[in-house]
């Protein structure tokens, strides 16, 4: 049914397990555990790769050299960073809401790890191909706002609180246009299933059919992942680091990890929803195309981030409500009309 190296490897593994264990349910459980572990590993490695990548790319944009001391050409810099972060003193400020404060970074990591289950990495390679995939995905990503607000409230710091409040405001302002923009894709595909969305792009990518939705999605994705120029939540020149001002060491590293995981998420989502997912010419396997596209997307988001100054909160919110939302609605209308005309022809 499916082709591709990853899929056939998984099938082979399943057969070996089947012959060893014999119980189908048990094999399913083992396979799921293996897949989840691989996904978590991808997430952790991507954080390592992206820290270095981000610093090197940012250095390139800023006419600097970037990290070049640890390992050959600074390749081990993120390992050194990781060791440093683990080694740091865990400072718990006075007057905080202890439970909320401790839970916030952990809870933040949950949604950003969970959505990896819905990404089709290759033909048939998707951990949970549920029939409401896109819907679930949006629902889960919008949960990231809660830990931010929790951390902001529990830190008992004014900077954190302002940051937490800003998260809520921008989530409300930008989740709606994003959903409406993605509506166009759902209308074209006729399904919310992630694999079906990729399948529908086997001939024409949705970036061609849905250019408006693509532009809206780029903007809203930057907001969702708190990337500059929309990083108001941690706008360091105003509110220092927003919700995670009061966190140190590994707790802070969890925020950091979530941030990079989110960055990769929006890269993967852009690839999956608009750039044809794992589709590509045959000389490379599907998953290679998938990662190439993802990295190009991430590079693009970093490029944008290191070029523009930060927006102000009022400009940003009015842009979301007054510009993006109407455009997204027009896009839904145009898509409907387009489908109608296509069907008539």
């Amino acid at each position, binding site marked *: 049914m499916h082709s591709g190296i990853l899929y056939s490897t998984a099938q082979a593994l399943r057969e070996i397990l089947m012959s060893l264990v014999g119980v189908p349910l048990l094999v399913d459980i083992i396979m799921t555990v293996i897949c989840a572990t691989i996904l978590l590993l991808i997430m952790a490695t991507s954080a390592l790769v992206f820290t270095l990548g981000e610093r090197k790319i940012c250095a390139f944009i800023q*006419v600097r050299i970037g990290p070049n001391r640890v390992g050959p050409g600074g390749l081990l810099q993120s390992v050194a960073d990781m060791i440093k972060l683990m080694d740091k003193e865990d400072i718990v400020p006075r007057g905080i809401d202890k439970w909320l404060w401790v839970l916030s970074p952990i809870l933040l990591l949950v949604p950003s790890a969970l959505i990896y289950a819905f990404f089709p990495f290759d033909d048939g390679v998707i951990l949970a191909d549920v029939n409401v995939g896109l819907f679930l995905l949006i629902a889960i990503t919008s949960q990231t706002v809660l830990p931010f607000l929790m951390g902001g409230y529990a830190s008992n710091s004014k900077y954190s609180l302002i940051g937490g409040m800003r998260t809520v405001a921008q989530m409300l302002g930008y989740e709606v246009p994003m959903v409406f923009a993605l509506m166009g894709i759902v209308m074209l595909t006729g399904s919310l299933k992630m694999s079906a969305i990729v399948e529908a792009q086997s001939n024409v990518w949705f970036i061609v059919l849905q250019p408006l939705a693509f532009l809206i999605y780029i903007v809203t994705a930057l907001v969702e992942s708190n990337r500059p120029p929309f990083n108001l939540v941690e706008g360091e*020149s*105003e509110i220092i680091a927003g919700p995670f001002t009061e966190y140190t060491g590994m707790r802070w590293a969890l925020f950091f990890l979530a941030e990079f995981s989110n960055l990769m998420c929006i890269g993967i989502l852009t690839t999956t929803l608009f750039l044809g997912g794992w589709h590509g010419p045959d000389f490379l396997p599907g998953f290679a195309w998938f990662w190439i596209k993802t990295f190009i997307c991430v590079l693009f988001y970093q490029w944008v981030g290191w070029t523009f*100054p*930060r*927006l102000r909160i*009022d400009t940003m919110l009015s842009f979301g409500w007054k510009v993006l939302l109407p455009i997204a609605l027009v896009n839904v209308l145009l898509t409907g009309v387009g489908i109608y005309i296509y069907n008539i022809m």
Partner: protein
Amino acid sequence: MAQTEKFVLNMGPQHPSTHGVLQVQVELDGENIVGATPVMGYLHRGIEKLMESRTYVQCVPYTDRLDYVSAMNNNLGFCMAVEKLANIEVPRRAEYIRVICAELNRIASHHVFIGSLTNDLGSATGMIYAFRDREKILDLFNIICGARMTAHYIRIGGVAADAQEEFLRDTQKFIDYVPAMLDEYDRIFTGNEIFQARMQNTSIITKEDALKYSMSGPNIRASGIDYDIRKIDKYGAYGDFDFEIPLGKQGDNWDRYIVRLKEIQQSANIIQQALDNLPEGPYMAKVPKVLKPPKGDAYHRVENTRGELGFYIVSDGSTKPYRVHIRRPSIVNLQALDTMCRGMLLADAVTAFATIDPLMGEVDC
């Protein structure tokens, strides 16, 4: 019952965007500012008091530490005040070299302004570009006097050493680079939509307010008031050069930025003229080894990068000044901060700090 209340947010002295150790107590209603009170003194070193126990020559290095990003201008102000007090005639060549250095330093200081402004607006990339170009000027200072920031190059009676061929050549090279540099800034910052949206029509200082708060320097010129000591007093060799005073229209953050950008162009213009007409001759007047100005007092002001820098010196006829008072533009300009921030958003406060361009070494003295 749910209710809202105002709260005070401390920005600084340890905060990523306050310049140096400025503390601003911002009173907030949500994200809206209803008041801003600057609190100073974290860098107070008592320079005025220290100068009372040093000889006139020993005082000059202290002026480097006032406004440490435009040290040459401060040296110039103090030296000219002492020269006025002791009636010392400065050679023409020294005056020209002083102008070259002061204007180079003005450009370097505006680089710091642009850098910190863009950084405060959330674009760290801009800072690196501005500081990269500032480095070129600091290297020039390194050639001429061996120091990069706290130069102590302008001395009482002239300058510490003659301008070498190498310095003049490299300065010319830098001046030739200025148009390309400004063009690059235009492409990175000035033309940026977000940059414009955040700066235009924010933190407006009207003409009346600018006069009321005795502001000076680019800040008052951005409000449309033609007030530049270089043009008014024509101190030193400034009378010889032809340059324009860029003026703003309405005194918002954008005007303050544009005025400084244009000033870089004008400074380069002045340097070019000074380089072309650099007279030959001595670079130092005959100043007695033990300088004892006659009894009396003198006030002299120069146009620092930040505005009107004045030195009031009282001499009791001994080798040490009896009293030195420094009229620092930064501290006077800071009075407008409350007016600038009121009614704006929190993010605008940061822009306001940046465009008013206070330097804590000078504010706290």
